[in-house]
Structures are given as structure tokens and as C-alpha cells.
């Protein structure tokens, strides 16, 4: 056995420790009666208890950019927003429980009604005349706090639509609606249907899930360390370790407004380094969240799984931000796929991909644009919209082309491709995502500046 293959085998065994029966048995013996006491209902109850804290904490955090808690009306507005968010969630729960008795027009498009309700609140908040009053501030607080709950309530309504609500309680749903394990607007672990499907039912399954979770938590700590090292050695950020020896590379957001005046080597380096940084950061955060879920017995997929080794654009998209991709697939891709162009297979996939990676992606990020949600200032939205819409379109087309290529390539597995071919494919994927990130970066650069930056990469000014 060569050194390289020996190293690979050791790494593989270490990575699969949680599947090793001897290790699982040792973990069971070590944790002893604690595992037996942590039955599924008790684990759910613990997460639901954590959710009670999040019920209060998270809306206050989300509304903070618009409502100053130290202002005279601050505490009252905060309390109102927390209660109203809970009322909205309770209404969504009731709607899901009685899904079959909802009016047919709602049953047909429940997600549309959910989002329509949110936009009604946005418009009402915009119409309130007294901008500084408690009513207006409460609307603002709601507008900023509800996006966290929207997609989660979407999964709740899907449960109702699929007839899965009968044996569940409100507290079961609270644990993902207000996740004590953390998360963004994207529900990591999806809704209760998905969580329950991956819930450990035996002590052995729980032990395996916990070991897998601990592995992710360890990996998250390692990734955080790598991010610190990268901040020092690559970006030479003063507070990071080893920054004195750093390359001092600029970040993309610093180069974009310069519209291509940076040396092309620095520009390319910023793009690739930015891609690696983004992947590490997302993986670290996702591993923490999924790690905690697994410790609590929900052995769900990782959010990020080696995307930098993906040999195709569609594979990268699948591995980079799994729960965001799943959200787009469930709420945009499949609803389009089963309704539109059923007798035109290629057009059908193109339309569904544009609906998900294009339109759905754009809409998801619009819901994170606090300034727009509070002011409905379309003119102010334009620079962001132009860049983001272009990014989403390029991403969707890239994914579509990649899907078609993968379908044609089916039969020849990645393992049969030669090493140079695999390296070439991976490099192509890196380059595609690095290049389109020019239009996804949150900098204030205009669309034109981003285009100038892009053409400067090829020596054109």
C-alpha cells in the first residue's frame, strides 16, 4: 500500500468512525443510562423549551435595525412584535391542521396565500402615516421579523397539505419554527416531516447520530480555525493570527467599486480566495447547526458537503448550501415542473430551473433586503436588483446546462474519468462560481462597475 493510499484509507476510517459498531457500542456504554432517558419525546421537549427562548429573542434581534429598544416605545413595540409573530405562527398551525377544510382557492396555492399575507403586512406598514409612532414601528418590526418564519411556515403548510399533521402537536412544530439550534431564514433540517423521518428511534441510532453530530461540531471548529488562518495569511487582517506574514490579498467587495483598476492577478486571486472563504464560512456555520440537530437525534444531511470537489455546476449547487437548494426545489422547482410544459421535457426542466435558481433565489434574497421592505423604494432597489437578477439568471442557466450535460453523461461515472479530466472539471466549476459571484457580492458597486471588473479579468478595459 502506497503512502497516499494508506493516508486516504486512514482518513476514510476516521471519517466513518460514527458508523463503526465498536465505536458506537463504546459511546453507548460511556453515556450509559443518559441515552435511554433521552427518548424522542424528551429530546423534542428540550428543543421546544429552547424554542421558547427563541420566540422572544429572535424577533427582537431581527427587528433591531429598524426599532431602537431604548426608544420610549421600544419595549412595547418589541413585546407586540413577539406576540404578533406567535399569533401568525399559531394561525399557520391551525391552517395546516385543518388544511382539508380550508377554502379550495387557498388549498390550491397555500404558499401564495402565505406570502401574499406577508406582503399585505409590508404594504400596510408602508401606508401607516405616523412613521415614528408605535403602530408604524410595530409594522416595521413585523416586516423584519417575519421573513425568518416564512419558509418555516411554508414547510408547516406543506405538512398540512400532505396530511401529516394528525399525530403532531404545536410544540413539535415550534422546534423548527423557532430553532434553538440556530439558522438563517433557511430552515436547516427543513420542517417536521423531514426531521421526523431522520429521527433516531433506538439508543443505538441515537448514539450513531450523536457521534455524527460531534464529528460535525469538531469539523466546524477546524473550519473556524482555517478561516482565522485565512484571514491572517491570505488577507493579512491585523486581528487574525500570522497576519504579519500574510499575502495581503484584497477582498472582492474592496475591488469591485474600483471597476477593474486592480491588477488582473489580484482580481483573479480575490475571486478564487473569496469562493474558498464563502464555502468554509458556510460549512462551519452549517456544521454547527446540523451537528446540534444530530446530537439531539435528528440525523439529517449536512448543509455543506465538499462542494470544492464537485465535478459539475449542478453537483456544486447540490453540495454547497443543501437546505437552501432544497427550499428552492420544494417551493419553486417541483411546483413549476409538475405544472408547466409537461410535454416538452427540456423546456420543462429549463422553466423549473429558472423558477427555482432564478426567480425563487431572487425572491428569497429580496426578503432579506431590510431597506426595501421598510420603504418599498424601487428606485433605491435598482442597483441591487440589477446585479442580483443577473447573478440568478447566470446561475440558473449554468445549472440547466450542467443538468443536461449530467443527464447525457449518465453511464460514465466520475470515477471512470481520468485525473486530469476530473481536475479540469473541478477547476471549471470553481471558475464558474467565482465569476458569477461578481454579481452576488453585497458591495455597493453598480452593475456597470461589476461588468468592468469582469472584463478586466481578461485584460479588457
Amino acid at each position, binding site marked *: 500500500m502506497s503512502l497516499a493510499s494508506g493516508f486516504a484509507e486512514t482518513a476514510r476510517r476516521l471519517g466513518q468512525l460514527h458508523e463503526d459498531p465498536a465505536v458506537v457500542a463504546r459511546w453507548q456504554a460511556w453515556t450509559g443510562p443518559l441515552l435511554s432517558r433521552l427518548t424522542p419525546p424528551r429530546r423534542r421537549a428540550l428543543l421546544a423549551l429552547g424554542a421558547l427562548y427563541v420566540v422572544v429573542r429572535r424577533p427582537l434581534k431581527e427587528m433591531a435595525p429598524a426599532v431602537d429598544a431604548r426608544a420610549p416605545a421600544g419595549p412595547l413595540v418589541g413585546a407586540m412584535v413577539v406576540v404578533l409573530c406567535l399569533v401568525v405562527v399559531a394561525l399557520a398551525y391551525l391552517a395546516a391542521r385543518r388544511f382539508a377544510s380550508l377554502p379550495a382557492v387557498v388549498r390550491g396555492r397555500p404558499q401564495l396565500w402565505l406570502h401574499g399575507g406577508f406582503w399585505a403586512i409590508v404594504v400596510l406598514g408602508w401606508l401607516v402615516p405616523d412613521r415614528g409612532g408605535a403602530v408604524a414601528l410595530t409594522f416595521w418590526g413585523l416586516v423584519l421579523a417575519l421573513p425568518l418564519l416564512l419558509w418555516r411556515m411554508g414547510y408547516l403548510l406543506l405538512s398540512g397539505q*400532505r396530511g401529516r399533521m394528525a399525530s403532531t402537536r404545536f410544540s413539535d412544530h415550534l422546534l423548527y419554527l423557532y430553532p434553538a439550534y440556530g439558522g438563517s431564514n433557511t430552515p436547516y433540517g427543513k420542517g417536521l416531516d*423531514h426531521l421526523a423521518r431522520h429521527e433516531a428511534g433506538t439508543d443505538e441510532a441515537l448514539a450513531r447520530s450523536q457521534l455524527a453530530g460531534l464529528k460535525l461540531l469538531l469539523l466546524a471548529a477546524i473550519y473556524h480555525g482555517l478561516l482565522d488562518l485565512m484571514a491572517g495569511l491570505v488577507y493579512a487582517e491585523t486581528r487574525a493570527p500570522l497576519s504579519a506574514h500574510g499575502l495581503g490579498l484584497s477582498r472582492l467587495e474592496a475591488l469591485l467599486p474600483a471597476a477593474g483598476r486592480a491588477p488582473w492577478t489580484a482580481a483573479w486571486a480575490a475571486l478564487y480566495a473569496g469562493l474558498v472563504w464563502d464555502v468554509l464560512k458556510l460549512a462551519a456555520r452549517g456544521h454547527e447547526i446540523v451537528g446540534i440537530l444530530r446530537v439531539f437525534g435528528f440525523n439529517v444531511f449536512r448543509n455543506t458537503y465538499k462542494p470544492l470537489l464537485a465535478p459539475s455546476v*449542478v453537483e456544486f449547487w447540490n453540495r454547497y448550501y443543501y437546505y437552501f437548494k432544497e427550499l428552492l426545489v420544494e417551493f419553486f422547482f417541483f411546483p413549476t*415542473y409538475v405544472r408547466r410544459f409537461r410535454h416538452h421535457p427540456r423546456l420543462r426542466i429549463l422553466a423549473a430551473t429558472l423558477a427555482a435558481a432564478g426567480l425563487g433565489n431572487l425572491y428569497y434574497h429580496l426578503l432579506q433586503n431590510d431597506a426595501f421592505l421598510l420603504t418599498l423604494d424601487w428606485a433605491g432597489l435598482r442597483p441591487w436588483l440589477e446585479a442580483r437578477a443577473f447573478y440568478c439568471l447566470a446561475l440558473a442557466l449554468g445549472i440547466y446546462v450542467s443538468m443536461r450535460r*449530467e443527464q447525457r453523461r*449518465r453511464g460514465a461515472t466520475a470515477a471512470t474519468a481520468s485525473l486530469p479530466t476530473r481536475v479540469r472539471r473541478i477547476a471549471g466549476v470553481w471558475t464558474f462560481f467565482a465569476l458569477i459571484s461578481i454579481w452576488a457580492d453585497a458591495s455597493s458597486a453598480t452593475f456597470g462597475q461589476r461588468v468592468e471588473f469582469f472584463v478586466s479579468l481578461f485584460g479588457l478595459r
Partner: protein
Amino acid sequence: MRQRHRERVLEFLRTIQKPDRPLAAVAETDSLVEAGLIDSLALLEIVAFLEEQYRIDFAATGLEPELLTSVSGILDLIERESR
């Protein structure tokens, strides 16, 4: 009847599975995606197969992608929609 459906479904799955994995090695209730037998793109073809062969209208019934990742899930769906 289920046996006949099973044979038809397995025959179809063999046309879209990855060539280096034996279909027989995967339990009927196991996820074919997690077992590495099919990729997530194959789900689109499974949907098209069920629409075409069994006249299932997912626009009307709703689609739960995770149910289509196992042989038993597909068979249950066929039986439910054939009633």
C-alpha cells in the same frame, strides 16, 4: 398487482441508475439517492415515468420528492393513486 408494479418500476430504475451499483443490494425501503444508486436528477425522470406510465397528475396530487427516492415509496404512491 404490487409485484407487477415492482417489476415495471425496477426495470425502469435500471435504465437510470448509476452503472457501478447493484440495484438488488439496496433494500426496498432504502433511499436510492442516499445509497448512491441514483442522483437527484433522476427524480425528474421518475416523475415523468409515473406521469406517463401510471397517469399520475402531480399537479393535482402534490409531489413529495422524498417519497420517490425508495422503491417502496414509489410503489405505495402507485397503489394509492390507482385506487
